[in-house]
């Protein structure tokens, strides 16, 4: 480093100007302690919080679904879709499964879990692991907690596998190859399931240290050519409910050593089918555990429409297999554009926007698990998330300026 030999520019005269300009007045009547810049902390995580990932900014924004306010953010570097953060309340930690390159989009790739304090959102440490986590558009069940101690990360290359990360020991445990299967569907503290191309589901059990112990496989319950089930699925205790492209519901019970398959049932009756109603979207299945309600985004389409947004969310009682409600999509286009225009949600103008602008429909839903649940709904290409009363579908509010693009949502 070399200093130029020129005389320094005349900063002191400028300082004199500044002093003149910014001259502090003598104290007046109203006084208070001098304000001090500080850093906020998170309130206790409410039941109606939701993580909203954004592909362009590569972070997840934590919204309070009741107030509509942003509570905080977690950076989520990724190749395509940021994975949503995972919360473990007992350790008060948040985990983000990330991917970075040493030179932005070039250079050496590194896969790691970033660990954050769940109150301060400060970075604590990272756990680098040697496998390459899957990177896709929809990213359903790509990185999930297995109990409170482990994270399972779905890898696609050079083979489909699940990397086990021990969050307590802060180490990579091992890679479990699951050729022909995909996804991490947590079951309990030491087990997770996957969906397989032969129409079965496997359950993999880990030992105490997180290493592979054993595997069991269900009977085949779907046909991958004729009517496959989506990766998006709903969990209720030790059961996972999968929904097929054509609307068939398959519930698998993992409470026994071998996964058992319940009789399937159809989301749609003949009238629905003649109107071409079928499920579809990106993360389009959700389950409210206590009430046994199943929520599915529905649209009118046919083969190949399974990623189309839907204008409605239908609700079933899984016990009776009866549809109990049909919720209409709020106008997320209006919410998105309205926020850019500075139009408040209770204004007349917003009402007109709602009426004029066609709704883009819903790709993605997530439901809170409390006694008064809310249903979060988003369109993958719009930076606005709708909040519905999950008991009656009433639109409560919108979470606006929620990024630009993203296929997922997660209720912590």
């Amino acid at each position: 480093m070399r200093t130029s030999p020129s005389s320094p520019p005349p900063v002191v005269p400028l300082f004199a100007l500044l002093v003149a300009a910014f001259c502090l007045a003598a104290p007046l009547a109203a006084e208070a302690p001098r304000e001090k810049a500080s850093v906020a902390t998170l309130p206790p995580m409410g039941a109606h919080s939701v993580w909203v990932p954004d592909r362009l900014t590569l972070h997840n924004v934590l919204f309070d679904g009741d107030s509509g306010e942003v509570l905080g953010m977690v950076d989520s570097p990724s190749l395509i879709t940021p994975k949503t953060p995972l919360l473990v309340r007992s350790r008060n930690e948040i985990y983000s499964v990330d991917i970075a390159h040493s030179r932005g989009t070039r250079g050496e790739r590194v896969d790691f879990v970033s660990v954050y304090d769940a109150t301060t959102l400060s970075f604590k440490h990272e756990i680098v692991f040697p496998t390459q986590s899957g990177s896709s558009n929809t990213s359903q069940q790509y990185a999930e907690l297995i109990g409170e101690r482990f994270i399972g990360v779905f890898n696609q290359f050079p083979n489909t596998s699940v990397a086990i990360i021990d969050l307590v020991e802060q180490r990579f445990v091992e890679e479990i190859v699951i050729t022909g299967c995909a996804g991490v569907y947590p079951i309990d503290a030491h087990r997770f399931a996957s969906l397989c191309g032969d129409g079965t589901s496997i359950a993999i059990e880990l030992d105490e240290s997180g290493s592979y112990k054993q595997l069991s496989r269900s009977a085949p319950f779907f046909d991958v050519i004729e009517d496959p089930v989506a990766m998006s699925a709903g969990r209720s205790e030790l059961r996972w409910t999968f929904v097929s492209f054509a609307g068939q519901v398959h519930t698998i019970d993992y409470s026994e050593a071998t996964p058992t398959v319940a009789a399937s049932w159809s989301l749609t009756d003949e009238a629905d089918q003649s109107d071409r109603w079928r499920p579809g979207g990106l993360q389009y299945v959700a389950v409210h555990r206590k009430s046994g309600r199943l929520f599915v985004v529905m649209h009118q389409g046919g083969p190949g429409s399974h990623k189309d947004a839907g204008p409605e969310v239908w609700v079933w009682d899984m016990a009776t297999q009866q549809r109990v409600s049909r919720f209409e999509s709020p106008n997320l286009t209006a919410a998105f554009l309205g926020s850019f225009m500075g139009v408040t949600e209770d204004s007349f103008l917003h009402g007109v926007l709602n009426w004029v602008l066609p709704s883009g429909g819903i790709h993605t839903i997530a439901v809170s698990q409390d006694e008064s649940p809310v249903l979060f709904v988003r369109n993958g290409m719009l930076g606005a998330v709708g909040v519905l009363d999950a008991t009656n579908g009433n639109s409560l509010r919108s979470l606006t300026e929620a990024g630009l693009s993203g296929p997922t949502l997660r209720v912590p």
Partner: protein
Amino acid sequence: MRSLDEWLEGRARAIARNTSRRTFLARLGGVLAGGAALPLLPVSRSSAGTGSAGPDSARVPAPDETITGPEGDPKSCEYWRHCAIDGSACACCGGSSTTCPPGTEVSPVTWIGTCRNPADGKEYLISYNDCCGKTFCGRCLCNRNEGERPEYHWYRNNDINWCAGATSQVYNCSIAVVIGQATERQPEK
């Protein structure tokens, strides 16, 4: 003003439809078309190289490309070869329907679709290679999900970033290379 309404509606439809255009491509290794051994793993390392297998000198049935309108335009999502594309069309990104943009790398593994050429009425096998190593092109986002399947049926899944099989795993855009003629359509609907 009526037209404006229509545009807005069109735009909203486009938003609804295009979302999965942002999904990312996944295809069966081009090696299959060349009759090489079945890759038991998603990535057959032996398939590294450019997507279309077989000797360069091989002559194959050639499609009729004298098509007017969007079906004949490699920059259009309606281009006939794009019946199973998912991502940015490289013709809009500095490449063409068969060339990756300058400075990118052709993914060694691809998914294969079967598209009907409207000029000669025949079905052709299309290898959708990803171009990798530069960040997302973002132009001419296209997607169709006919026959698309979830990740457990990996060689029919178009969400996966197939650049994961390349040297650099950063996705830029996708090309659509004719590798032969098909006698019937794929079984997946």
